[in-house]
């Protein structure tokens, strides 16, 4: 099935709002916005951002540009943080503590936060999901 970007943008509301503080012309916001639009509209997401300009510019107290749930902890551990949130989901779902419906887990890490300082935490992420 052909992917029609115009249709997607016209019909799926953005889950990454304007009003963020990324620099004028930055390439990251369109990427994040398009990734978030790949979610099924009915699904809820928990997004984790590694410390970096994407994270700080989209979540400056008291504003967040994410319409889904979002968590930031530190630079190098987006994988492990989200693995914990996902474990909570698995556990609570199993125990009937959550309503029906799917939650997706998405981690955004920059190059450093992912495969430099964050390489160790990334290994945790693979350990859980591989």
């Amino acid at each position, binding site marked *: 099935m052909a992917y029609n970007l115009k249709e997607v943008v016209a019909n799926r509301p953005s889950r990454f709002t304007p009003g963020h503080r990324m620099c004028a012309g930055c390439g990251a916001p369109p990427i994040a916005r398009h990734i978030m639009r790949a979610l099924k509209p009915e699904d809820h997401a928990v997004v984790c951002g590694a410390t970096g300009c994407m994270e700080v510019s989209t979540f400056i107290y008291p504003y967040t540009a994410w319409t889904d749930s979002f968590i930031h902890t530190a630079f190098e*551990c987006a994988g*492990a*943080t989200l693995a914990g949130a996902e*474990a909570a989901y698995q556990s609570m779902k199993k125990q009937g503590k959550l309503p029906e*419906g799917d939650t997706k887990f998405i981690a955004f890490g920059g190059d450093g936060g992912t495969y430099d300082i964050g390489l160790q935490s990334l290994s945790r992420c693979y*350990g859980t999901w591989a």
Partner: protein
Amino acid sequence: MSIRERLSGNEAAATAMKQINPDVVAAFPITPSTEIPQYFSTFVANGTVDTEFVAVESEHSAMSACIGAEAAGARAMTATSANGLSLMWEMIYIASSLRLPIVLSLVNRAVSGPLNIHCDHSDAMGVRDSGWIMLFSETNQEAYDNTLMAHRIAEHKDVMLPLMVCQDGFITSHAIENIELVEDDKVKEFVGEYHPEHYLLNKEEPIAVGPLDLQAYLFEHKAQQATAMKNAKQVILDVSKDFEKMTGRSYGLFEEYKLEDAEVAIVCMNSTAGTTKFVVDNLRAEGIKAGLLKIRVFRPFPGEEIAKALSHIKAMAILDRADSLNAAGGALFEDVTSSMYVNNVHVPAINYVYGIGGRDTKADDIKSVYMDLLDIVKTNKIDNPYRYLGLRKEAQK
């Protein structure tokens, strides 16, 4: 009827965790706390608990995963020691600042280096300003009891702070003692269910956790943490009262052992209090009015209450199982003496750093402290307030 058992301190902590049945446990093994996640993962494998066990690759990730889980709306627990806590350190501050009532079992061990796997409190002292509630446990029974009370305290709406239950590595963690367990159903009822007000997995109200908190806000958020820590004192007392109703075992902010009419007193934490009680009994038999103040709640620090409890003492010694290496004295010494000062109570005080790296502290060592105190009472002179107990030195000429 409670259940009589014999368990090591680690078994006691793992048993408490089993009865609490948390949603998530994320842990990485480190001596001497390894057995806690080890026993617990057996409970998970056997289906005794509903917990999702996250076998992380490091303690940093263990705490990160606990933060993620707790923020998601789960009850999350972990255990560690020494360097494990050091590796967690960055996330320890983040856990408390995000106001996540995670419960950690800390089996106290010397932080490297040089490497040593035995007991001292340098790990706990390294996080004393991190905004965690810190409970210390003299015995396996206390480690168990403190763990059962932990969630009620940490999750209280006026508190919402993480909590660590400390016990001495090997001394209590690996020693088997008689213990009274509470029945599973009673624990379940006592601990209750966790229903956070706001959490990531609530799709009706998606939230954002962990912002960039700039100059206009971080100060106020830190002050909120400080307020919560102050609130924790009363909550701890209230929960302890409820616990006493269930078990008959009474807990306060600290324990006063033959302190009421004492002339000389020792202030210490964890298992050394047991040795000290033995010495106090012996000295009392000799007619010496010795007493003990054993700290249970180290954070929030009950400074005002401690100052009051010690106000009648003629000389006291504060025992620190970690050296602050500040050329002035240990952390507990500084907390106790500064609390006395601001509460206008003056008691001659000395500090002993002791038991570093698992150095055995025997009854005779504790007795020598009381003898030094009696000498201070007699001479009214303190040559050096910052001393070592059980340290080998060349003989003084």
